[in-house]
């Protein structure tokens, strides 16, 4: 149990380390130097340019040799200093990121939880019942075969353009000011629904398939046969099969999470919905390196945190780990 946990923590730490390093390397990949690129459009006097260049070298952490630059970068990050945005100067990157991450959470959290529950139920039913299986599996395969953004496009076309039920862009309409009033909440929910709905439907398929395969395997296991010959009701066997299938589905959660977050970036793009993914894209288009780095890091931290929570949940629901935990406590 302790070993399992340490191992996980090492992985998280490594991931964070790699993320920060990647963040540091990426701007240095561009031929030339970001400062030169930014100064290419500078048209003021030459002395001004020299001062500006010096200033930018300091803010970018481009002073000294590569190793020194790398160390500076780490020091800043550990102090929680993500720098200032270039295009939204002088706003702090950390504040921009904080304003955007809320939207990721309100869409992703309910969508993932709900799709996990519903997907598992569907999968269990399909694994157990041949008729349902024949009918529902092609639908599920079609779901997981559609690219996230394409599915989102279809949702927009049907629910927003054809039926006119929901607005198709932004987190709230331009005329409304964010406040804790009923009006605002209603507007917010109407904008929130389609991105949520898209994420919910499209992630459902993966869970359903995983659970289906688990149940097919479980109902053929010896214990299921034993239950059957001892005259247990089908319902009981099904329940055991489901409970056994749930564990790998929780582990699978961590693996799928990266995919889901990737998909969310695409869905945000279609719905023009704010979030870290959109922020990253904007930063790329405007060459706002600090913003890109900050958003990327926040995204990674979000995924790592979710993984961590799943690990803890896993420890509580897996009887084997739970038992070893309580024995350790003695």
């Amino acid at each position, binding site marked *: 149990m302790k070993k399992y946990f340490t191992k996980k923590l090492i992985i998280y730490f490594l*991931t964070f380390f790699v993320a920060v390093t990647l963040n540091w390397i990426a701007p240095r990949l561009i031929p030339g130097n970001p400062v030169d690129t930014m100064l290419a459009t500078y048209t003021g006097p030459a002395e001004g340019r020299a001062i500006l260049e010096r200033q930018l070298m300091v803010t970018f952490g481009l002073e000294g040799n590569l190793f020194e630059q790398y160390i500076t970068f780490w020091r800043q990050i550990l102090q929680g200093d993500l720098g200032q945005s270039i295009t939204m100067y002088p706003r702090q990157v950390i504040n921009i990121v904080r304003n955007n991450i809320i939207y990721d959470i309100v869409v992703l959290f309910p969508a993932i939880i709900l799709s996990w529950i519903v997907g598992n139920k569907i999968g269990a039913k399909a694994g157990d019942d041949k008729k349902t299986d024949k009918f529902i599996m092609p639908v599920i395969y079609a779901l997981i075969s559609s690219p996230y953004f394409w599915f989102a496009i279809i949702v927009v076309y049907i629910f927003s353009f054809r039926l006119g039920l929901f607005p198709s862009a932004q987190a709230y309409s331009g005329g409304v000011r964010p406040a804790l009033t009923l009006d605002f909440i209603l507007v917010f929910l109407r904008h929130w629904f389609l991105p949520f709905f898209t994420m919910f439907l499209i992630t459902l398929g993966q869970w359903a398939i995983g659970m289906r395969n688990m149940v097919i395997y479980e109902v053929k296991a010896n214990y299921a046969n034993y239950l059957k010959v001892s005259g247990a009701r089908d319902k009981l066997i099904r329940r055991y099969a489901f409970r056994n299938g749930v564990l790998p589905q929780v582990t699978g959660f961590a693996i799928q999470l990266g995919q889901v977050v990737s998909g969310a*970036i695409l869905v945000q793009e279609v719905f023009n919905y704010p979030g870290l993914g959109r922020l990253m894209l904007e930063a790329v288009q405007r060459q706002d390196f600090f913003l890109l780095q900050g958003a990327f890091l926040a995204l990674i931290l979000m995924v790592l945190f979710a993984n961590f929570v799943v690990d803890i949940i896993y420890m509580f629901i897996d009887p084997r780990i739970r038992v070893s935990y309580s024995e350790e406590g003695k």
Partner: protein
Amino acid sequence: MTAKAKRIFQKIKSNENLYFVITNKKILFGISLFSAVCLFAIIGPYFANYGIGEYVGISAPASLAAPSVDNPFGLTMNGYDVYARTTYGLRSTIQVGFIGSILASTIGIIIGLIAGYKGGMVDEILMGLTNVVLTFPQLAILIVIAGFLPYRGISHMAVLVGLVIWPWTARAVRSQTLSLKNEEHVNLSKITSNSIFSILFEDIAANMLSYIFMVFIQQFLGTIMATVGLEFLGLGPTRGVSLGMVMRNALQEGALYLDYWWWAIIPGLFILLLLFSLYFINTGLDKIFNPELREM
């Protein structure tokens, strides 16, 4: 049935796996659909009535641009042929997917084999690396790297995608290697002091070819998804058309609100068909390689 056909049939029947492949409905359906989509990418461009950059004619309002005999997939808002864009775009996307997944499979197989066979510290390190890459949201890394590349060709794209997507293969191959490495024939090979290279590839990898093939299909699925996503975000190949880009343009120009649905939806349909067919092939193969699942 002629004698020759009979003999061929007998031969196929004696090769059990091949026999199940050609009698499995799911696989047959999957392979036909997959070939059809690929064929469309290969010879589709020759049937295009217009080039990619060729102006066809007035395309507003939307009713004038709807699919017709001359333009089977309709026109874009600026009067270009959607059919041409789709078929050329599909070609580019499949190319990236194919090269990328070969690269990813190669990396994944090598890492998985070594990690599984060597065990101990080597295994810990390699699997640590694998899990780190797996935890990342792939698209986020791809955005960070692709965003900084001034020029992106098909091969750049393939390498980029391949480099983030290999962990799936690595994990799968490792677990298979673990179960194979204590087999008699591997031990025999070890005693006769065969090189580690020959043990890994001739004794272990050769015995999980069917498995590797299935993993390759999954890898291909993943690569195509990632590629199309990147293209849609405007980070695809800098020259030429790609499927994701066509749909990006459609969305940006407001195709959905002016009812040019064919422009935004038809190109993606081909991705759906391509991946759908592969899932069918894979579930079919699963039944063949795991005889337990076969319905007798």
